[in-house]
């Protein structure tokens, strides 16, 4: 095996922080090399050094690529050498067609005039390669995230990729879309394309990776060879967090009380397409001290259900009955829902959950400003005390609570969102994908917080696409399929296979 890429002793410092400290990475020709590590361990920084986002000279150490010392000045420089990075947030223009996106900045043209027939033909070839059965003229916005991800890969192929870097490619994907993507990676590998895969999903990594490099606190911890022997997930996790994590889910004594929130005959129609019913006759109950889960595919209506309950934030013609502790409750607007004791942590923290350019303090108190104010005047000192309390309780890692939220890692941002809702003192918390894009250590902390909430007698509704997490945490699991709750399983009778069987049946 020849070495395609070697990064030696990479050190990158930002004012006051050493993001990377003497990191080594060796990628062999034709392998799938996984990089794992907790959020903030330095994976993304390392990839930015490699792709020239941080140009040569701004870091120490050397990069040897295809046997030569490389010094990339910017992304286009590294792309010329066949290094292409696909970010978690997709960089496609939603209103343009697949063909236009594939050749954006690289159009098939003579003297500025586009040769459409040729461009469409080349697009079709590329789409066949990635196994995507779509017309070249389809607009990106009309496709699902899974297909968009494949378009991104096709775009990389159009640029003659030699080293493909994928940053959390399956974070937003469904199980079957993820599988397609992983299969494609294996196929590309057969064609001789080398890939670097950054992911939190260890089961996916053990499925495709040849070797795994573990990074912790800006330093390389180990490089594991999966071809020689099977590497257990426990082993990887141990290297990632620097400690043994025998239990991925904290233990909890269930102490379930009376019904807290009951939703009866809930129906919701699409906000724009009047005749499309999104939620159909949904009934469910959360009891005191109980964690319930809602499983289902993305697009099955889980988020829509949660948002329609939380102050009619989504959908129209919402009908149905909501009871809190047996009494009918008015949830017709968000502030009423909050006042009634509901909280909803959104799936999309950055877009819907946080004000990124604001401080941690101001984000935490936003949903309960009444708690830190008197007669409409905010008591800044009281507010500070509240924020400090949550920083300690939730273990938010930050030098100061006056730090803007945008500077925090994903896990810490999620803790700020949770703090915000805990400060609103809800009786029922709806958590929509609370651990998405969060590292193992922070996930565990969030599970512990959920358990604590339940032990205080509150009800928790957990919406998740990760079945092991639902099985590990919930007392009961509802399965959602095309806007209906098709099954209700107790913890003892639920298994991944059973849940899946309800998801796939029509």
């Amino acid at each position: 095996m020849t070495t395609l890429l070697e990064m030696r002793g990479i050190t990158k410092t930002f004012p006051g922080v050493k993001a990377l400290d003497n990191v080594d990475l060796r990628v062999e020709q034709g392998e799938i090399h996984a990089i794992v590590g907790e959020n903030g361990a330095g994976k993304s920084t390392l990839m930015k050094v490699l792709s020239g986002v941080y140009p040569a000279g701004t870091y120490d150490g050397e990069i040897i690529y295809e046997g030569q010392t490389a010094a990339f000045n910017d992304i286009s420089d590294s792309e010329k050498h066949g290094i292409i990075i696909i970010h978690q947030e997709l960089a496609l223009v939603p209103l343009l067609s697949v063909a236009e996106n594939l050749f954006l900045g690289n159009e098939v043209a003579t003297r500025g005039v586009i040769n459409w027939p040729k461009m469409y033909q080349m697009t079709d070839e590329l789409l066949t390669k990635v196994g995507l059965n779509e017309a070249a003229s389809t607009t990106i916005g009309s496709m699902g995230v899974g297909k968009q991800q494949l378009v991104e890969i096709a775009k990389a192929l159009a640029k003659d990729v030699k080293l493909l870097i994928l940053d959390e490619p399956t974070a937003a994907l469904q199980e079957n879309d993820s599988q397609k993507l992983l299969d494609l990676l294996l196929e590309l590998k057969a064609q001789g394309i080398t890939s670097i895969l950054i992911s939190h999903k260890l089961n996916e990594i053990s499925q495709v990776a040849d070797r795994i490099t573990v990074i912790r606190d800006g330093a390389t911890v180990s490089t594991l060879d999966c071809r020689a022997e099977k590497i257990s997930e426990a082993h990887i996790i141990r290297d990632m967090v620097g400690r043994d994590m025998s239990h991925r889910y904290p233990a909890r004594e269930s102490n379930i009380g009376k019904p807290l929130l009951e939703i009866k005959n809930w129906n919701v129609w699409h906000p724009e397409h009047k005749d499309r019913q999104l939620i159909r006759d949904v009934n469910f109950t959360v009891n005191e001290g109980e964690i319930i889960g809602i499983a289902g595919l993305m697009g099955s209506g889980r988020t829509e259900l949660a948002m329609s309950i939380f102050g009619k934030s989504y959908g129209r013609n919402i009908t149905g009955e909501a009871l809190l502790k047996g009494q009918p409750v008015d949830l017709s607007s968000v502030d009423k829902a909050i006042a009634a004791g509901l909280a909803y942590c959104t799936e999309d923290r950055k877009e819907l959950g946080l004000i990124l350019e604001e401080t941690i303090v101001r984000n935490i108190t936003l949903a309960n400003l009444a708690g830190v104010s008197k007669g409409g005047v905010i008591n800044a000192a009281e507010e500070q005390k509240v924020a400090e309390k949550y920083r300690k309780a939730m273990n938010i890692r930050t030098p100061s609570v006056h730090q803007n939220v945008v500077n925090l890692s994903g896990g810490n941002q999620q803790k700020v969102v949770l703090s915000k809702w805990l400060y609103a003192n809800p009786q029922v918390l709806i958590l929509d994908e609370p651990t998405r894009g969060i590292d193992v250590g922070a996930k565990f902390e969030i599970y512990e917080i959920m358990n604590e909430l339940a032990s205080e007698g509150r009800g928790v509704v957990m919406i998740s696409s990760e079945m092991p997490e639902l099985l590990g945490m919930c007392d009961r699991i509802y399965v959602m399929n095309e806007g209906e709750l098709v099954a209700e399983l107790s913890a003892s009778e639920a298994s991944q296979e059973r849940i899946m069987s309800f998801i796939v049946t029509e």
Partner: protein
Amino acid sequence: MTEETSQSKVVAQKSVGEYFAAHLREYGLLLALIAIMAFFQITTGGVMLKSLNITNLFLQNSYIIIMALGMLVVIVAGHIDLSVGSVMGFVGALAAILMVNHDWPMWAVIPVCLMVGTAIGAAQGYWVAYWSIPPFIVTLAGMLVFRGLSLWLLEGQSVGPFPKEFQLLSTGFIPDFMPQGVSTTLADLFGARRFNTGALSIGVIASGFIVYFGMKKRARNKAYGIEDEPRAFFIGRNIIVIGGVLFICFKLSTFRGLPNVLVTMAVLTIIYAFLTQSTVIGRRMYAVGGNEKAAKLSGIKTKRMTFLAFANMGMLAALAGLIFAARLNTATPKAGFAVELDVIAAVFIGGASMSGGVGKVIGAVVGAFIMGVMNNGMSIMGIGIDYQQVIKGLVLLAAVIFDVYNKNKQG
């Protein structure tokens, strides 16, 4: 416990230079104003800081500053209002018609005009907030409509003069409330023709309050371990601010005293600074501009906040219109023409962000003064209106470029 001590140490150890770099924008703005004033003081041969000119500076810029307060709120909420110049002109015209042509008394005209302004703002806010029509379009329409309506109202003529007591709104001064004897003694002492001891004492009292509240806030921050500016900065900033306040009050007291508009302006600035920084409604305004969807899902009535921002802007535009008309002693169809651009420029020079959620009242006021001092200084120097426009444009661009550069460097 150990963690806490190590953290407070970090705060303490943060060097003065680092603190300055992190807050370059806030201190830079103040220093820029001082530098610009010093520059014109030299180039105009000392005319800039003469008592008469300082008085003029306040009279000339009062209406811009008053509207900048409202515009800051609108911009912080993530919107823009292009109609304020026209609304200001329209309300001035309305006041003239009511007072001059129909002999309405002033005490009735002022509240009616303020209500009309609020209603205009509310109407525009209604379309923006509840119909999601882009504020650029709504207020561009408003700009044309109210420019046209003031022409129609005035029938293309200038209408005036206003009754004496209405003019005082703009050109009046706070009478000296201190004993006459003290003032004559001080006038002799400073070699001035007259001296308004009341004006100076208000300056002294204001300075006292600035220091008192500054110290109180510092003590509270310390008690709660909130990071605060280094002591040297606190002292330095206070010396500059108090020095400025006392100097201006002294200068004004050797002329005719404190202009009424200065007092109106100062009181409004304090009220809006308080509203935006320390109240729930102010905090919500920032949240709406910072991330409307997140604000909405946190139980904030985002549409109502937008509506209020525009209604408030309308009210302040009306007040500015009254003050402007009172100063000119006539309402003209051209009043307030292109003023919206000065107001918007002041807010952006003051550090507000186009995308919303960022900006401070004090910044907008200092920004307005920077524009005003430049207008005034360049006019005294006899620089043509052509060059003046170019220079003002470049200053606005430079201020925003500086902001973006600063942000990129930090991020």
